[in-house]
């Protein structure tokens, strides 16, 4: 399973920053934002200038005014936090599709599998925070395996904002209990008992903690440590393509597993088909009686909702499932789906000549790539380069068409050595082909030849000496592609190479 990673972003002065952005004159003035609460007027946010004077949220507005008489007072607009965070969260969707609002002043981003697109976790987090700060929000961020740990480090962490995978326990030890997103009452009780950091009570018996502080503490602790899943209310909820199949009796045979996979696929494909979608990856999870969860996944080259084909892909992996005492629940997820062209069904069996877009071919390639790896299947397209090694490029998809024509004006060998191999030659200077050459201990007398064809290095890509290619035929009628590197020169002995074999 993919390593899950979360980023928590904390806007330290969310409301104050927003007011400053709207009214630039507030930049140099200490101000507070207030809200009436139970007959008193309380400070709910203060800008950093006000905070310098010791004004903190939770104080009475009158007390704050007493400390700094010039303090500006702004009335709070109810629901403003949520509105602001929603806008910021929507902006953050460029970094990950899974963004959740974390009231009152934070965001939680599920960034599993996103960071590498920004060149790693550090640049990724750095980019987000830098951009948010440049927009005028005083943001702090942290990254960890769990939303809870990221939340804690973002607010209370002192050193490294990135908690290495699996290191959340160490990161939490020295933080205060408030880092666990607990109710005020519980924090107060913990502090009263002298638990100033999480380390102090983390090792205590779970039942003791539950009795004293209620289940919330345990839940939050477990969530931060990654022992319990946390559900995030996403801004843009994804309706997952997910199917479940509980079994009355544990399944222990390959046939049973096959039937289960078929059932799940049929349900999933039916839904995909209705939505006009096809899946690119699918994950099957088998929950075993002994508590273990087995997972197998498949991938396809073209989006597909064809049950038979997808089943075949799974079929290859069924032998890797060990049912042991039996499997009681199967689930099937399609984390990656794409739209499919509607003519898929029509194309099915009509013509007998396979084109590159044929689904029979795509299915074959899926099957192959699921077993031997995607990278071992290649297709080549011509490229506008003279240098032979660069005259072809690997096509990115089955649908990609050549953008230029295949050049056939000059002869090119059928087989090309991956790197040219040095040969010994006897040659008349300056421009004659060799009289003979020796390759792998065998002497080849050259009877006929064509050339030279000079191929220059493409200086805008790479420096180097040009090659003079000769197309030669030896006394047995075998044809080769030889070249001499660079110009003739008195002090250097020229290097000759064999580069290919002609048909």
């Amino acid at each position: 399973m993919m390593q899950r990673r979360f980023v928590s972003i904390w806007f330290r002065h969310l409301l104050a920053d927003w007011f400053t952005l709207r009214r630039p004159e507030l930049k140099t003035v200490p101000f507070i934002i207030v809200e009436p609460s139970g007959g008193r007027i309380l400070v709910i946010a203060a800008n950093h200038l006000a905070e310098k004077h010791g004004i903190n949220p939770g104080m009475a507005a009158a007390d704050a005014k007493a400390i700094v008489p010039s303090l500006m007072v702004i009335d709070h607009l109810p629901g403003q936090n949520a509105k602001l965070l929603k806008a910021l969260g929507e902006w953050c969707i460029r970094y990950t599709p899974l963004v959740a609002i974390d009231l009152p002043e934070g965001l939680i981003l599920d960034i599993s599998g996103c960071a590498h697109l920004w060149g790693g976790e550090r640049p990724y987090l750095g980019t987000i925070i830098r951009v948010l700060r440049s927009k005028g929000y005083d943001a702090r961020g942290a990254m960890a395996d769990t939303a809870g740990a990221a939340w804690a480090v973002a607010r209370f962490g002192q050193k490294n904002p990135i908690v290495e995978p699996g290191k959340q326990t160490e990161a939490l030890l020295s933080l205060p209990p408030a880092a666990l997103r607990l109710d005020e009452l519980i924090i107060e009780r913990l502090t009263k008992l002298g638990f100033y950091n999480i380390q102090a009570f983390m090792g205590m018996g779970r039942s003791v903690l539950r009795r004293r502080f209620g289940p919330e503490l345990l839940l939050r602790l477990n969530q931060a440590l990654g022992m319990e899943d946390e559900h995030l209310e996403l801004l843009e909820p994804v309706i997952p393509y997910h199917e479940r199949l509980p079994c009355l009796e544990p399944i222990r045979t390959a046939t049973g597993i096959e039937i289960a996979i078929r059932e799940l696929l049929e349900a999933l494909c039916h839904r995909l088909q209705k939505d006009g979608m096809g899946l690119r990856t699918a994950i099957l999870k088998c929950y075993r009686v002994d508590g273990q969860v087995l997972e197998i996944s498949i991938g396809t080259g073209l989006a597909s909702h064809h049950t038979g084909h997808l089943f075949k892909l799974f079929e290859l992996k069924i032998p890797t499932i060990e049912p042991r005492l039996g499997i009681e629940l199967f689930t099937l997820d399609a984390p990656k789906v794409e739209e499919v062209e509607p003519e898929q069904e029509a194309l099915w069996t009509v013509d007998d000549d396979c084109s590159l877009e044929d689904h029979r071919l795509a299915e074959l390639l899926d099957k192959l790539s699921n077993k031997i790896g995607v990278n071992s299947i290649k297709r080549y397209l011509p490229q506008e380069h003279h240098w032979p090694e660069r005259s072809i490029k690997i096509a990115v998809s089955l649908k990609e068409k050549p953008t230029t024509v295949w050049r056939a004006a000059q002869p090119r060998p059928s087989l090309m050595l991956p790197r040219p191999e040095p040969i010994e030659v006897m040659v008349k200077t300056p421009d004659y082909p060799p009289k003979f050459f020796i390759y792998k201990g065998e002497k080849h007398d050259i009877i006929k030849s064509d050339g030279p064809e000079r191929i220059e290095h493409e200086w805008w890509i790479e420096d180097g000496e040009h090659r003079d290619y000769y197309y030669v035929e030896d006394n047995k009628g075998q044809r080769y592609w030889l070249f001499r590197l660079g110009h003739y020169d008195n002090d250097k002995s020229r290097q000759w190479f064999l580069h290919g074999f002609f048909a």
Partner: protein
Amino acid sequence: MQATRQDTINKLRKDILLWEGFKPPALDALGSFGLGSIEGAFPNGVFPVGAIHEMLCPTPEHLAASTGFMAGVVSALASKGGVCLWISRYHRLFPPSLMFFNMPPHHIIFVDVNREKDILWVMEEALKCEGLTAVIAELQTITFAQSRRLQLAVERSKVTGFILHNNPQKAGASTCVARWQVTSLSSEIEGGLPGIGFPRWQVELLKVRNGKPGNWTVSWDGNGFNIAEEEPDIIQLPGRKAG
């Protein structure tokens, strides 16, 4: 009386061919390969498609020559823009060269695998895929049982397979329909002009099921084969039996 007996024998021969899976050719497939007299060596006088051909390539030079000859054949098969699969361990084919043999290189999918066993698996799967024009595999050896599996796959799908044997010393009995060896011959150029002419090969049909082995000189002029027939009796098959 004599004539009727001959007729009966001919009829029986045709029946045997049918039972062995050689169908009389469909009319539209006739003569489309441009292989001229070579086609006469095959049962019913038709180059067998939907079958597996073996080519012996002991040296890279042989491999290059076989590639050229085969590309010419496959280009006739794929005249309508079909797709081929090329499976090998050491990918050495230079795709642009196929243009000379009328085969668009971007219609070939290369599968590079690390193990012999995987080549066979990929080939079998590919041969089952109806609609592919040809499946070409570079192999060290193949056992009889393995070749039987491939044969069963093509019988259903009618895909044509080519096996390029890199180690023909070990090439034993197999179910392949034909065993070829293509050797380079010096090219001919008119009027003794300098340079190199069109590729020319010695094409030996060493074994062919229910056909007559033979030996031809073939050249490719960029559009089709030119075949010069030699005396049919001169083939020598050292240590190998035809059939």
